[in-house]
């Protein structure tokens, strides 16, 4: 008899947990999805936002830029915002509009793709053209496209060391790969090599850094935030004579840089004041200013003009919310 009672109690407790606990629960957190390159920044802002406003910490999912936009534009009850490492394409904008989703774009900063290798090995000067020769599947020669045959660096240029070309970088599913292809692959098709000179690493930049440190003559491609966190062990290659740094990427001098974006849904801002507050925190000087907590994490701040424009856009959101 006693045992039976205990069982009924346990069952009751379970049902309580599942259903009764729901209404008691506080406000639902904001949901942001998208690029894994922006994810660390969005989550950091989320924590500061929660400390300042006492709202719950937003839920942030790193699904990749493409998948994030697909979810965001998939329906009105999708995520509240999407973080991307490229602007929306026309097709994506159209898809959002068909679903009746209104959105606002915020540029939040810059990121750079950095070619790194271990501090123990001497650097050499790379140009974008050298990288095309080293990375593209097909390269132009005498007006036609031929398969890339370069095995050693000194086959590309006499001054380069005579070591095997071995470059570790992102896989084709990531936004970083898209940028790489866009910036360095020439007229002969949008593919990187598959013959072992370019090695696709899964979306784990720590793994790339480990490999670069442990195996000689290996070059890795990482995002700027990873380079900043590991710059005691890694050295960056200059590209076209420009050394990657906060200043050179911000000014647009470093050739392998890209802007990062936050898009938010503006359909029901009045019901979700937290969303506006989150955006305001994201583009505040405290976050993306020159000495903000995001630049500590490796986000490259916007130029002052861009920053002013974003501030204005956010103030406009606030007015929309008030009206």
């Amino acid at each position: 008899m006693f045992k039976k009672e205990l069982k009924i109690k346990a069952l009751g407790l379970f049902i309580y947990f599942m259903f009764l606990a729901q209404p008691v629960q506080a406000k639902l957190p904001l949901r942001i999805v998208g690029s894994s390159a922006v994810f660390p920044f969005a989550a950091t802002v989320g924590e500061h936002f929660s400390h300042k406003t006492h709202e719950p910490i937003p839920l942030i999912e790193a699904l990749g830029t493409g998948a994030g936009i697909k979810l965001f534009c998939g329906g009105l009850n999708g995520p509240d915002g999407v973080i991307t490492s490229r602007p929306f394409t026309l097709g994506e904008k159209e898809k959002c509009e068909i679903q009746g989703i209104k959105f606002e774009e915020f540029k939040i900063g810059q990121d750079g793709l950095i070619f790194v290798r271990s501090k123990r090995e001497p650097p050499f000067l790379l140009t974008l053209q050298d990288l095309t020769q080293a990375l593209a599947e097909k390269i132009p020669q005498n007006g036609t496209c031929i398969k890339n045959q370069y095995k050693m660096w000194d086959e590309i240029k006499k001054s380069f060391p005579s070591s095997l070309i071995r470059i570790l970088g992102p896989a084709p599913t990531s936004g970083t790969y898209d940028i790489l292809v866009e910036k360095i692959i020439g007229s002969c098709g949008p593919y990187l090599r598959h013959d072992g000179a370019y090695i696709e690493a899964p979306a784990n930049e720590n793994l790339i850094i480990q490999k670069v440190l442990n195996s000689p003559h290996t070059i890795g491609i990482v995002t700027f935030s990873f380079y900043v966190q590991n710059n005691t062990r890694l050295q960056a290659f200059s590209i076209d004579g420009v050394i990657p740094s906060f200043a050179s990427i911000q000014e647009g001098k470093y050739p392998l840089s890209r802007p990062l974006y936050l898009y938010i849904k503006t359909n029901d801002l009045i019901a979700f004041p937290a969303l506006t507050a989150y955006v305001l925190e994201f583009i505040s000087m405290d976050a993306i200013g020159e000495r903000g907590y995001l630049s500590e994490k490796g986000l490259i701040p916007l130029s002052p003009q861009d920053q002013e424009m974003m501030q204005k856009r956010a103030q406009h959101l606030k007015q929309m919310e008030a009206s």
Partner: protein
Amino acid sequence: MISSFTKRHRKEKWFRRLGLASLFLALLFLGSIFGEIIYKGYPAFFRTVIARESGQISLLNPHARYHLSEAQEWIIASDDVDMYYKHGYVGKQTPTQIQTIEDLKKQGQIRLVFNTAFFTHSDSREPELAGIWGALIGSLLTLFITFLTAFPLGIGAALYLEEFASKTRFIHWIEANINNLAAVPSILFGLLGLVLFIHFMGLPRPSALVGGLTLGLMSLPVIVVTTRAALSSVPTALKEAALGLGATPLQVLFHHVLPTALPGMMTGVILSLARALGETAPLLMIGMVAFIGTPPSSFLDPTTVLPVQIFNWSRSPEMGFVENTSGAILILLFILVLLNGIAIFIRKRFES
């Protein structure tokens, strides 16, 4: 004749040596893995703190400014300071900052303490503030749902198949399928969970309910197989004796078969739950990879689990997360060892 004798014995000697060598090789692998994890992970259990009276706000963790009004004597330092104090990594700190840390050292205003935050905090983007509490609660809630779905269904199915089902073709077909399912890669159960629970039933996405149900589906075939093995190891003589004394098949089952098979069944259940606890792949499929900074308070709340948090930390750029990752792995291993220990204890207890 003699040469054949020595040959055969030499063969045996070699076989033994080979066996011993493979054992040592396996131990060496295991040892080096554990060694590395422990070596990398143990610093995670200690944290650098700075005395409040030193007034060095720039060396404190980035969230310290929200808590400055609270009366705390020692405040957690930023991850850069932590890395320098523990390992001597300079990182992106300026020489003046390094000098300040050296000065604090001389004045005794900086020291290492046991890292309670690692156990009481939830996930954070700041390695010095991140902890496993939220993930641990998430793992418990998820495992509870897994247990509730897999245990009754698995045991019930196994009992029926082993004791009551007539051996028809259909039953054989089902048996073969269950055995195959037990060997299916776990990520496929993630796909099944994605389609069934999220797309079809529309349950909330990164929740303990969906995670638990998916892991439940994954553990189900394993529980059925182990339970059936335990049931079939019950001596037929025992059952026939009970039947001969006039017991009904149901009585035989509950009075004799189940108590005898229980240790084997429990071991199977606990081991499959331990596997579910350490599982990441299917949970990645159903979107439990989110950054969640607060522990879940119900089964429908956004939830993350321990292995997924380890996965997330291992992808983070900050150096501090390297030791956090290994630290969390140590905790997960400890829990798994504990569960296996319980399984062994139960088996020994009921067997005697």
